[in-house]
């Protein structure tokens, strides 16, 4: 990033959220780089940027699309790069229809499932299965031409109208990015949750990727798209995931009915038949994981105990799980350093869900709000819950902090750093490692005589980690298992040096293939601490980066197709003709001896078949994807849809909002009606949440510390002087903010840093809300939680909720207390005529259009899924949404029902569109607790019907995650190229999460 000539920070408040990472921006600026901040608010990032471009939250694709449009129409793209390294020349199926044709839908939309079948989005292929290309880029079916047409109506006028950005500011942006891209110069984008926390989040990122690919800024120093992430090891927690849809190393969790056998599963992960890249060895990676977990019980004969793995069949994310809790479908809940009572969207729903649990274990340093909700939470105050009636057993277990245990964090650029233990935890405080080890031991002990086959996986599990004198597990022994080791033979037990040593015959075991090598030679590579002064700027001997200690991905793109540097100034990795190898300032992320001119006639076949100019080696075809034939469930190219609850009409399409977004139709998750519907003016303003430098997410690690608490002691809202005048708010007085879900109070910061925008002729006021505070008795500072205002509506790719655009209203004064608060919120709900259907109408185009889209799908389907196998491992199969049941029960009918004013009659309302668990409650709309008339068998698990044959249900999330992070595994989304640029360590990121802690 420090090498960039222009840095566009959009959807991120980098200086505030990642001050130390921001040093590279200030450094670049000091060297003359231009820094532009595109954000609804003027923040501390803006303060030292060259330019602030205020934007309406949620309109980013319009802006980026307009930049793409300008680049394409004026030929400002980096032609040689685009031709060589992207799929611009690929031809797309004749059946593909664009949003331009279908008024906001792509071809393949299935109105019954509200999902796409992506078969019409695939490449045209020849008999050998190789993609057909038109190097002239003139074929109307070429990606280049499709792209051009797709964004043709994304104009400066549209930007002015929808984003609220002045034409002059737009021209400034155009000039900045185009003048600072090309052979000699590079532009870098940085984003964070400002992009991801939207129902279109993943597509925001893709739009930037397309622009960066067109400008030739991917894989090059000072280019790329940097994700800025919010948690110490948010990266690690997806690499070695505590996520429902992933196993370590981005292996998917197997899906019921899809990955019935180990071979099915391996086929989905990746095989030489489907891949050029390293995913071709999927069988080895899966085998090693199983072998590491079940040791001797995992044998070739039993497919390495593949059957021990539980199967998923839908989304089991946190919001789906929470709905299940509300339905008494979950007994126990572990919180590991996480404070959902404050940090998750729709906090009331979170806390109510907890009250339905039988027991909860909270592992933290302090009595966070998620540990005390039963005692002093907002629902106790409002009378909705009574302590004496709450059955939930609570266990608060003190956690060891980062100095009291050893282990690794993986930072945002995949660098895995070992922390040495400094002191022993005080009192009964304990590390998660010890807790889980002990818990596992006891559970196994209690079950040791069990004959029940369901207990075999627990009893057969390798669980014999060495402990020290104090009974604490040696974390290095766990790291060694993650790294992998030889099984049997003369090297038995010795650590693997890299993942190429992994075999699929059970002679090696390893818990996370991408981490193989971290314990090479028995040395803890993550603990390496060679001072930066003693090594070059790549600092390869500081800790260890996965994969294979490679610091920068896709750096082959930093050289021209012929292997020479694009320019002396941006020289990074190049082909050395004399030695016949790639060389440069970093470890080349490419087969080291694959000459630039090398060509393979195979479309697949593992790394050996990469062409010499296929830099994006984790993509199935080695190219950067301007058009994503697979991998995105909501469209092959980003398209502007209005956010949920938006009060603005989509100026581009009749399709108002994303038709594939995931909604939860529930009485306790009401949405504002949205533009054009009655009741919209009850919630006329836009709330956008964010965080502050001085606090950490839900506050568990900051609101208890006096030094941080004093710096930002109170919940506040930021509003423009214009809005203050309109509503009558006094500076630093109190305001009450009301959304369709809740009402909170905050102190008022009236500031010109908030700018009213004129959108479609109307003035839109945005209100900024930091979300660090929560209500509870223990913290040094408390306050109302902004997340209580949020509803749960999710991006269909990654299931991240929309926190950046919430409809609501504001008035002077403090909020009502006690039961009156509930009445107060309901008063507004009634006034707006809200029902669970409000704002949740997914499809807003005509039936004919839908039919046309669907028909395209059917035709194409006959031809099979030409693209599919190729990237099933990394890609996701689109076409699946998680709203099946709900949508079954009436999505199409909803069209009429949604006016918002439809009284909820007592007829049953399906309340949990997303409850993947499959449980559906049919109950009167106005009563949550009573009359649960029917519960569908939980095992029915809804799921997604396997008939569509998509293999990878699990991948959805995976890709999602990985995509966001841009890592190796991920391909389809572009990320491929995201390549965080330069070795810097810098980047930070945070992906989706700001919200939690």
């Amino acid at each position, binding site marked *: 990033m420090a090498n960039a000539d222009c840095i566009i920070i959009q959807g991120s408040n980098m200086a505030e959220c990642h*001050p130390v990472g921001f040093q590279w921006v200030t450094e670049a600026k000091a060297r003359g780089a231009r820094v532009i901040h595109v954000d609804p608010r003027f923040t501390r990032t803006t303060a030292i940027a060259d330019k602030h471009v205020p934007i309406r939250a949620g309109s980013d694709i319009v802006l980026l699309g307009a930049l793409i449009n300008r680049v394409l129409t004026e030929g400002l793209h980096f032609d040689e790069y685009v031709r060589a390294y992207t799929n611009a020349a690929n031809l797309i199926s004749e059946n593909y229809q664009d949003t331009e044709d279908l008024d906001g839908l792509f071809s393949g939309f299935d109105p019954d499932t509200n999902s796409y079948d992506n078969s019409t989005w695939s490449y045209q292929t020849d008999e050998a299965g190789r993609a057909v290309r038109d190097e002239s880029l003139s074929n109307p079916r070429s990606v280049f031409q499709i792209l051009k047409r797709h964004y043709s109506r994304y104009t400066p006028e549209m930007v002015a109208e929808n984003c609220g950005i002045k034409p002059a500011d737009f021209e400034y942006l155009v000039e900045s990015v185009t003048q600072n891209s090309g052979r000699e110069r590079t532009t870098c984008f940085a984003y964070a949750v400002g992009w991801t926390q939207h129902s279109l989040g993943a597509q925001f990122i893709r739009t930037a990727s397309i622009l960066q690919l067109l400008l030739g800024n991917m894989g090059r120093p000072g280019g790329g798209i940097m994700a800025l992430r919010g948690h110490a*090891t*948010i990266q*690690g*927690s997806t*690499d*070695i*995931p*505590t*996520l*429902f849809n992933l*196993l370590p190393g981005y292996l998917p969790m197997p899906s*019921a009915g899809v990955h*019935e056998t180990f071979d099915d599963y391996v086929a989905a992960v990746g095989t030489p038949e489907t891949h050029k890249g390293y995913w071709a060895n999927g069988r080895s990676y899966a085998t090693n994981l199983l072998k590491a977990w079940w040791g001797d019980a995992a044998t070739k004969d039993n497919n390495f105990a593949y*059957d021990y*793995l539980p*199967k*998923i*069949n839908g989304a089991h994310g*946190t919001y789906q*799980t929470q709905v299940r809790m509300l339905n008494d479908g979950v*007994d*126990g*809940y572990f919180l*590991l350093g*996480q404070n959902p009572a404050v940090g998750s969207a729709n906090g009331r729903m979170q806390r109510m869900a907890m009250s339905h649990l039988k*027991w909860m*274990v909270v592992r933290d340093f*302090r*009595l966070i709000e998620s540990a005390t909700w039963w*005692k002093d939470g907002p629902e106790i105050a409002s009378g909705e819950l009574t302590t004496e009636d709450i*059955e939930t057993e609570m*266990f608060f277990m*003190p956690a060891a902090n*980062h*100095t009291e245990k050893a*282990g*690794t964090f*993986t*930072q945002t650029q995949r660098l895995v750093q070992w*922390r040495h*233990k*400094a*002191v*022993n935890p005080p009192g*009964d405080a304990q590390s998660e490692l010890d807790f*889980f080890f002990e*818990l*596992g031991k006891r559970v196994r002990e209690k079950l040791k005589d069990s004959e029940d086959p369901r207990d075999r996986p627990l009893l057969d599990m390798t669980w014999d980690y060495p402990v020290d004198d104090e009974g604490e597990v040696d*974390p290095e022994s766990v790291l060694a298992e993650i790294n992998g080791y030889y099984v049997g033979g003369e090297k038995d037990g010795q650590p693997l040096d890299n993942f190429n040593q992994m075999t699929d015959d059970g002679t090696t075991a390893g818990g996370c293939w991408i981490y193989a090598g971290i314990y090479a030679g028995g040395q803890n590579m993550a603990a390496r601490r*060679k*001072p930066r002064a003693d090594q070059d700027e790549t600092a390869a001997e500081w800790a260890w980066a996965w994969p294979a200690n490679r610091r920068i991905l896709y750096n082959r793109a930093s050289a021209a197709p012929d292997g020479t540097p694009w320019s002396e100034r941006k020289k990074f990795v190049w082909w050395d003709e004399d030695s016949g190898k790639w060389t440069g300032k970093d470890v080349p992320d490419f087969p080291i001896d694959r000459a630039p001119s090398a060509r393979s006639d195979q479309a697949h076949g593992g790394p050996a078949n990469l062409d010499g100019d296929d830099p994006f080696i984790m993509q199935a075809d080695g190219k950067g994807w301007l058009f994503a034939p697979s991998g995105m469930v909501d469209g092959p190219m980003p398209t502007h849809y209005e956010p949920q609850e938006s009060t603005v009409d989509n100026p581009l399409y009749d399709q108002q909002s994303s038709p594939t977004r995931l909604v939860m139709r529930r009485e306790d998750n009401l949405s504002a009606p949205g533009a054009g519907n009655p009741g919209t003016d009850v919630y006329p303003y836009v709330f956008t949440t964010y965080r502050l430098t001085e606090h950490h997410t839900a506050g568990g*690690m900051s609101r208890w510390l006096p030094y941080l608490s004093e710096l930002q002691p109170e919940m506040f809202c930021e509003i423009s002087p214009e809005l203050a005048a309109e509503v009558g708010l006094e500076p630093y007085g109190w305001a009450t903010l009301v959304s369709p879900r809740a009402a909170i109070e905050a102190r008022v910061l009236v500031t010109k840093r908030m700018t009213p925008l004129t959108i479609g002729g109307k003035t839109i006021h945005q209100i900024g809300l930091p979300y660090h505070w929560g209500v509870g008795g223990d913290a040094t500072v408390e306050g109302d939680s902004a997340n209580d205002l949020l509803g749960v509506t999710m991006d269909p790719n990654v*299931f*991240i909720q929309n926190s950046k655009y919430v409809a609501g209203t504001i008035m002077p004064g403090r909020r009502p207390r006690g039961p009156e608060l509930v009445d107060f919120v309901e008063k507004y709900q009634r006034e707006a005529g809200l029902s669970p259907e409000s704002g949740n109408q997914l499809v807003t185009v005509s039936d004919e259009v839908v039919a046309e889209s669907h028909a395209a799908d059917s035709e194409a389907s006959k031809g099979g899924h030409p693209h599919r196998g190729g990237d099933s491992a990394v890609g996701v199969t689109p076409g699946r949404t998680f709203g099946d049941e709900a949508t079954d029960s009436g999505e199409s009918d909803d069209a009429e029902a949604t006016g918002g004013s439809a009284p909820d009659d007592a007829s049953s309302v399906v309340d949990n569109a997303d409850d993947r668990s499959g449980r559906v409650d049919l109950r009167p709309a106005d009563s949550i607790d009573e009359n649960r008339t029917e519960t569908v068998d939980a095992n029915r698990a809804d799921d997604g019907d396997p008939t569509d044959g998509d293999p990878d249900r699990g991948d959805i999330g995976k890709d999602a995650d990985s995509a966001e992070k841009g890592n190796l595994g991920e391909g389809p989304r572009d990320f491929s190229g995201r390549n965080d640029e330069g070795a810097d360590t810098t*980047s*930070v*990121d945070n992906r989706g*999460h700001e*919200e939690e802690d």
Partner: protein
Amino acid sequence: MARFSPLEWPVIRQLRSSDASGRGESVVSRKTRDTTSRNATADKVVQSVCPYCAVGCGQKVFVKDDKVIQIEGDPDSPISRGRLCPKGAASEQLVNANGRITDVLYRAPRAKDWQKLDLGTAIDMVADRFIEARRNHWEDFDDKGHPLRRTMGIASLGGATIDNEENYLAKKLYTAAGAIQIENQARI
């Protein structure tokens, strides 16, 4: 200045030295003269990583008598070059500030307050509940007869602030137990 020595009386030192105006060396107390950095008194210095955001800034943890006495940026780190943001700079408080809970607390159903609980007892109780919840909501097959082998009775949230090794053990245990509703803030 425990023992009073007339010659060490600053007024006298003032006259004896060139610091006649009494604004420098002559007025220095013994304690001041013996000033050392508390870092210099540490028994050991441990290299660590900041627990807040994902930049991964290096930290140096200074330890004396098994107590953390200082945490500051690690200048050796190529990532952070010794710098920390306010949260990172407050990490020592995260460790040492008053009021940290170090006992296991238990709240029985319908109880109005916490009670202390022995750690071993607590883990044992959790283990019992873990097994019970697992059984209560066990699912062998979906409605089409596909094997599931899982339990919906247990959920977990968290992981982005705990170690990779910890996440690994947690995921391994949960998965072996058939618990699948495992999430962290990567998705929140």
